[in-house]
């Protein structure tokens, strides 16, 4: 079997490359895929070593086995994915078919087929992840596949390093074309491959409903929710309340948005500085467009404002969006409709009897609404309430159990309980969810808000000031609001043994900030380069607005020009200057050419120097000296150090006149 047309070296190379391209998929799909692929490739490799018979001519049984595997995989995948050959099914099929193709690979042609399937596998990874890491890894795999092809094509040349160098050059030369295609390829609305429906709040961020416990899982993930870049000075950390869903209705256990979002958009009375900022929102599969409380101008946000002062996109967000808007952190929201007032006072009948009684008692003892709010907050502060991300489970009536039983919880417990108390005391109140704070990245000057920054707070309505934000969590763990989640937890938890300012930790934090900054730029410039940015680019080129087909034509034209340029470059590079003297002289001539003194191709160096001296008396001496050196080095083979010419050329400047 070793007499086949495929060298064992090539077989090893292509198997390794296929495995590299498949590795991220294997991590996604679990060990089954890797096992299937690995078994097939192992079979082929053992066959090449003569340890196992391979399917092929003269072995009908094994060939049958091969076909059964192939058809079986196809039917199996179709069955699992209910007949739809979508993203996952396609990748699974491709992986198994790649294994089968490796198994039957025996000719030179098979090597090429396998290499090109590997290229395609690289592309499929981007259906799942478009992170910088994925892009980097895939570039590496493309480089390796190309190097394999180079090494295979170069007859007898067994130099892996030379193959890699050539492959790297090929990949580098294709970069301009890639950039053109990236900039001009017509963008399709929405992702090419529908994102899978994600479950609830775990990854997707804030849900439209809240039941006590929902936020816990969220608080523990480090996933990025959105990034914010402020134009100018950012607000104080304690003012960074990022508004998400506003929850009005409760059935005693779960809070929902209800009808509160309906109605006219209320005016905002600004009482302080305005901040302009740009949010890059990660896809959440919800319609929430987060904003800094309270938005005074919704800018180019792709959604509409609601009666409860939030922003809603037209459809769930499945790809990153970027929008710029304006907010003020000192503001008043005076408007309330009768319908909203009714909703902001409603409590489900029969629930939270102890909480209601407590609230009414407290209200009766209070002089005013403000006094009632203050007393309620003081209750949270003075009684032994604890801030914890892992509160004990609540049994029975959740709010009563929390307020009078466990007294241990996080923002959501405090916000829900506080809302119930307010409503029971006759104060209109609504529950607001969103994010609080954010991590400032000094390298790129922006904030990153992660899922663990999720927060819940309350807005109460007073006749004099309108809607006012009250954050009961701040009464229990004020650090949570001013310093962030970890500080809030540290109040209860023992300090970590590692000193927070220790050098390794500082280095780690610095590296992380750098990585985050790079990722942010990646998101802004690469992933965020969507149809609007593309339109802006085309407009900045002075072109009229182009449709998708116009863009495609523009891209093809640009690619053609790019390829022509590349071809010219390659052809020119193929006739290299014969020695360093010639190269130095070429640089010297290029400098003069930029000043308008162009040497004709058939003009001798001395003739050229004479002409330059006649045109520019100020250059005569230096041009003459360099030309003499060049002539001696190149034509007289004079034993002069070449660096003398190179240094003079390097220092040669043509001052514009």
């Amino acid at each position, binding site marked *: 079997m070793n007499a086949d047309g495929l060298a064992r070296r090539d077989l090893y190379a292509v198997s390794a490359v296929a495995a590299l391209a498949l590795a991220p998929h294997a991590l996604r799909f679990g060990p089954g895929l890797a096992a299937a692929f690995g078994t097939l490739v192992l079979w082929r490799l053992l066959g090449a070593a003569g340890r196992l018979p391979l399917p092929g001519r003269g072995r009908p049984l094994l060939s049958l086995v091969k076909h059964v595997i192939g058809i079986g995989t196809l039917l199996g995948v179709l069955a699992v994915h209910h007949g739809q050959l979508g993203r996952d099914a396609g990748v699974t099929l491709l992986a198994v078919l790649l294994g089968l193709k490796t198994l039957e690979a025996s000719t030179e042609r098979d090597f090429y087929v396998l290499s090109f399937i590997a290229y395609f596998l690289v592309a499929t990874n981007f259906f799942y992840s478009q992170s910088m890491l994925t892009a980097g890894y895939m570039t590496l795999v493309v480089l390796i596949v190309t190097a394999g092809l180079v090494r295979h094509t170069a007859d007898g040349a067994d130099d892996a390093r030379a193959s890699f160098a050539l492959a790297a050059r090929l990949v580098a030369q294709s970069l301009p074309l890639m950039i053109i295609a990236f900039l001009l390829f017509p963008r399709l609305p929405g992702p090419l491959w529908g994102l899978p429906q994600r479950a609830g709040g775990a990854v997707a961020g804030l849900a439209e409903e809240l039941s006590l416990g929902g936020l816990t899982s969220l608080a523990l993930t480090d996933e990025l929710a959105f990034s914010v870049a402020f134009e100018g000075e950012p607000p104080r950390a304690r003012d960074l309340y990022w508004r998400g869903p506003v929850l009005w209705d409760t059935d005693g256990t779960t809070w929902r948005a209800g009808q509160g979002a309906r109605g006219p958009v209320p005016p905002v009375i600004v009482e302080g500085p305005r901040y302009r900022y740009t949010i890059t929102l990660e896809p959440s599969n919800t319609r929430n467009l987060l904003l800094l409380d309270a938005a005074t101008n919704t800018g180019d946000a792709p959604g509409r404002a609601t009666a409860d002062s939030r922003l809603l996109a037209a459809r769930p967000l499945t790809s990153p969006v970027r929008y710029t808007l304006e907010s003020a952190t000192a503001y008043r929201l005076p408007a309330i409709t009768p319908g909203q007032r009714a909703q902001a006072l409603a409590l489900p009948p029969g629930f939270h009897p102890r909480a209601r009684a407590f609230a009414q008692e407290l209200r009766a003892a209070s002089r005013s609404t403000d006094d009632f709010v203050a007393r309620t907050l003081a209750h949270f502060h003075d009684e032994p309430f604890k801030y914890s991300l892992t509160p004990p489970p609540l049994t029975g009536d959740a709010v009563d159990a929390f307020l009078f039983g466990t007294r241990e919880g996080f923002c959501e417990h405090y916000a829900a309980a506080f809302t119930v108390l307010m409503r029971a005391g006759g104060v209109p109140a609504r529950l607001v969810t969103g994010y609080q704070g954010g991590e400032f990245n000094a390298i790129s000057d922006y904030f990153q808000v992660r899922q663990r920054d999720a927060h819940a707070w309350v807005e109460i309505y007073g006749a004099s000031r309108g809607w006012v934000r009250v954050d009961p969590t701040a009464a229990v763990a004020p650090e949570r609001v001013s310093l962030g989640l970890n500080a809030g937890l540290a109040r209860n938890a023992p300090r970590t043994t590692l000193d927070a300012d220790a050098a390794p930790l500082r280095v780690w934090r610095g590296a992380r900030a750098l990585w985050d900054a790079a990722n942010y730029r990646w998101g802004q410039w690469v992933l965020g380069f969507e149809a609007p940015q593309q339109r802006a680019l085309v407009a900045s080129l002075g072109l009229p607005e182009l449709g998708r087909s116009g863009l495609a034509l523009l891209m093809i034209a640009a690619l053609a020009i790019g390829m022509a340029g590349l071809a010219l470059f390659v052809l020119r590079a193929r006739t290299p200057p014969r020695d360093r003297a010639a190269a130095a002289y070429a640089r010297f001539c290029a400098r003069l050419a930029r000043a308008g003194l162009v040497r004709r191709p058939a003009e*001798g160096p001395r003739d050229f120097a004479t002409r330059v001296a006649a045109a520019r008396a100020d250059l005569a001496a230096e041009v003459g000296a360099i030309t003499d050196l060049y002539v001696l080095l190149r034509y007289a083979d004079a034993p002069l150090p070449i660096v003398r010419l190179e240094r003079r050329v390097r220092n040669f400047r043509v001052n514009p006149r």
Partner: protein
Amino acid sequence: MSPEGTGRVEAGVAAAGGAIARLLAAAEQVILGKPEALRLALACLLAGGHLLIEDQPGVGKTTLAHLLARLLGLGFQRVQFTSDLLPADLLGVSIFDRTTQHFHFQRGPIFTHVLLADEVNRATPRAQSALLEAMEERQVTIEGVTHPLPAPFFVIATQNPTDQAGTFPLPESQLDRFLMRISLGYPDRGAERALLRGEDRRALIARLPAMMDHAVLEALQQQVQNVHVADPLLAYVQDVLAYTRGSPRYATGLSPRAGLALLRAAKAWALTGGRNHVLPEDLQAVLGAVVVHRLRATDGSHGPALGAALREAVPIP
């Protein structure tokens, strides 16, 4: 080469350059306003080649030949080619000497250092080929006896423009035997005025002292051989040859002999400039004189324009 060796060669080259410059300066006193033609003619001689001057009668072809012979201290003969010129008139004849009862070879005018073959295209092809064979072989064979020509041997042939009546144009294969073809052209107004005012050129030449002799000339010719040609210039010569062979502008391309001639002429030209290495400019300076008579342009162009076009068409590598 050791540093001292290099230094000695350079000193020799500088001395040669100085001697050549003085000689040319003297020549320019006689042939007015033609320094380039003079230098080309001298370079041709130093390169050991023969020179063809194609021009109208009366522009100083004969004077040039006479002058060079005089300044270099060489013997000089002039043969007027006519349609009835026989090879024997040029090469010589064997005469039966009655006193010794032996044939005695009577040398013809070709046995000299500088031979001026005037109006070479008026002679019959038979006479022409006798000259050209002698030029190539540098010897004459008559009745089985070979008589070497003196060294150095330098033919300056003049030719009237070929469209004149009663001419036998030299075939291309024979034109190839001339290292260079130049034309003198009419002098410019100032030079002509000086010519008219001055005394007779012949008398002037007769009074000039010889500035070199055989030995010096041979040493110079030896030095031409040693002029350095760097690889890029060989590539340049090859590019020129390849261009004439590939371009549709020429009916035939240049032969390898033309390439050798170009190099030899460029080396001699470099030496007349006091250098022991060839520059691209040296090649360009001799390009027109060396290649134009070996090329036939398809568009009928000839002369300096053809040379200039070729020079501009081939980039210096």
